């Protein structure tokens, strides 16, 4: 079966996110003062071939752990759907 995985990779909460910090400041300069704590991550989509959804999940999980996210700095979450 063919599945689509949508993966969100975000910087760890406890780590400084320089990009998010600069964007928060810039939004405030645009008079959007109510916006706080911007954090910027990545969204990745990929196609995968697997016998069932559980196997697809394992594959996606492994892809995230091994390459797509750096566990030192990032967390990840994903959703899987048959495509």
């Amino acid at each position, binding site marked *: 079966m063919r599945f689509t995985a949508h993966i969100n990779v975000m910087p*760890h909460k*406890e*780590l*400084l996110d*320089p990009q998010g*910090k600069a964007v928060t400041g810039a939004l405030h300069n645009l008079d959007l003062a109510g916006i706080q704590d911007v954090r910027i991550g990545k969204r990745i989509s990929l196609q995968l071939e697997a016998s069932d959804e559980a196997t697809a999940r394992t594959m996606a999980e492994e892809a995230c752990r091994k390459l797509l996210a750096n*566990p*030192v*700095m990032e967390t990840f979450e994903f959703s899987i759907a048959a495509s």
Partner: protein
Amino acid sequence: MPQNSSVTAAPASLEQALKLGLLEEEFEQIKSILGRSPNFNEVAMYSVMWSEHCSYKNSIKWLKTLPRDGERLLVKAGEENAGLVDIGGGLGCVFKIESHNHPSAIEPFQGAATGVGGIHRDIFTMGARPIAALNSLRFGLPDNPKTKWLVKGIVKGIGHYGNCFGVPTLAGEVYFEDCYQTNPLVNAMSVGIVKAGETVSATSYGAGNPVFIVGAATGKDGIGGASFASADITEDSAEQLPSVQVGDPFEEKKLLEACLEVIQTGAIIGMQDMGAAGITCSTSEMSAKGEHGMIIHLDRVPLRQQDMKPWEMLLSESQERMLVVVKKGQEGAVQAVFDKWDIHCVAIGEVTTEQRLKYYMQEELVADVPAQSLVLGGGAPVYERAYSEPAYFKAIQAFNPASIPIPGDLRAIAFHLAQLPNIASKRWIYEQYDSMVMTGNTQTNAPSDAAVVRIHGSEKALAVTTDCNARYVFADPFKGAMIAVAEAARNIVCSGGTPVGVTNCLNFGNPYNPEAYYQFVHAVKGMGEACRKFETPVTGGNVSFYNQGPEGPVYPTPTIGMVGVLDSMENKMTLSFQHPGDLIYLVGSAREDFNCSEYLHQLCGVTHSPAPHFELDEEHALQKTLAHLIDRGSIRSAHDVSEGGLFCCMLESAMSSGHGFNLHSPAGMRKDAFLFGEAQSRVVVSVNPDLKSLFEAEVAGTPYSLLGRVASNAEICVDGESWGYLPEWKQAYEQALEQALTA
């Protein structure tokens, strides 16, 4: 109120202290300093301040034997964040090198990036604008996948921070050797310029003066990082990963501009950047230096993460922060500058006469310690470790050069050498660094042995370099360290400069290992001897122990960062051959010596051989001669003989100009040793044939020999045999490293 009843929180246990890395006797010492049992906050503070990283407890005894005085020195070694040397014309040069080995081993990108950020902060905290960045890197062999990952991450990290910060990465060195497989070395150096009278000291005095924390908000970054740097790296260290620090070069760039601007207000008493042990280190070192105390309200520190405990704030190593002591009544001027740059600037306390540091959380006193007791030169312990001659020295002494057959095809050997990772062009690496921002780098269009950077608004230029062939130090720590100093000085002299000062980064194994400590002690002795000879005092630097992995310690690597001065750009000497027909001379003696060479080590597979020929007096005389030749205008290029020997030296001079050469080897000497040997104290120069007799008169007194001529085409000719044309050599030389790293 009696002191011992004023601090809240229960006393810490010995077990907690041991866990934080303190020794039992150190715990007892803290008790006797305080006259009571310390609480956990206090134990945590001592554990970091008395760690190797901050206290130099296992090295300071020997560091004090290095020459630390000189007529150009404006501050004594260790007194400020970095060395400060008078370069004349009302200018001072501030420079320092520091290691970030262990963080880079774990997270190469951020580890290297924050290393660069930290060293620049040490420079601008003194009021100087950084104008040059250098680095010295050591990796395992490039065919190893882990090495590729480390090189890519570390190079990207250095580039990311330096490029954004806007200071050119001008020079450096990169070596690949098995022993660095687990534990790479990342040493970063920064060089800045300050006008005389505009320097700022890391001090604090004047009761009632407010203390500000400036820059990024404080998070739980790198808590225990300083202790972490003082522990061996094992597989288990991966569990300490949350302690990785994230650098923000944009914040630091703003901080640089704001700090230099705020100094102009005249409102600053003292300033220090926060590196290891953050608030603890900066408050204690500044207070100890100014012989005052401080009251600090930790609850006023801007936080990035909620619910931080006092000890977490005290130890946090969040980057891009400074502690600034301001003259009372002038806070407004200071605040205005930081507001302009959108930088946090918050008063967190004030200076007191009593020489104690008192930290409060709301109104509760959470730590209370004498400032002096925490710092190096104050209460921090000093140890002398045992050492013994390394057992591997026997294998080195046993090497017999006659056991190496002379190869038949020397051209093939030379072609292979030019592509070895330690010799091949580092272009793939340095093109990822902005080397030209600040428009001072004169290397781009006219390379020289040391990087020559002009100083805007002055006739002067600096020549800067980092050097250390650690294999020589491994073979003979005393002589090897002398060679590192000598090569740095030689590079500066060959570029037309006068060496003025040294910063060092001493990367060694575990100091509790008597053989590693032997290497350390003898390297420091050799370094001291050479620095005295070249009149280049050691202005500061950094010691990094515990550089080892399961396969053993790294080569002892005492990296030398050296700064030289050119009074005018007219003195600059390039390494490129200039004109066809110019005579090529070797200044110094040709020697039948290939000990410790890349040729012997990499191509003949000899892991243990003595350090190459080196005599300090001979080297000193050679450098005097070189300086004289450049001063008299009697040479057109100068390039010192180093890794890869005479042939690789000439090849580099040829490739950077496109002019080939012919070379004649002397009779009665092994040709492989002549071409590829790395005996020290030799420089290849090219001379206008019309000035032949002038040159030979000027060089007299120093051994020299005619090697050949610069060719009118791109051909390389050795003893009448064509070795091919430069484009082929250049392509191999320039692409080898990229191919090895990206294969």
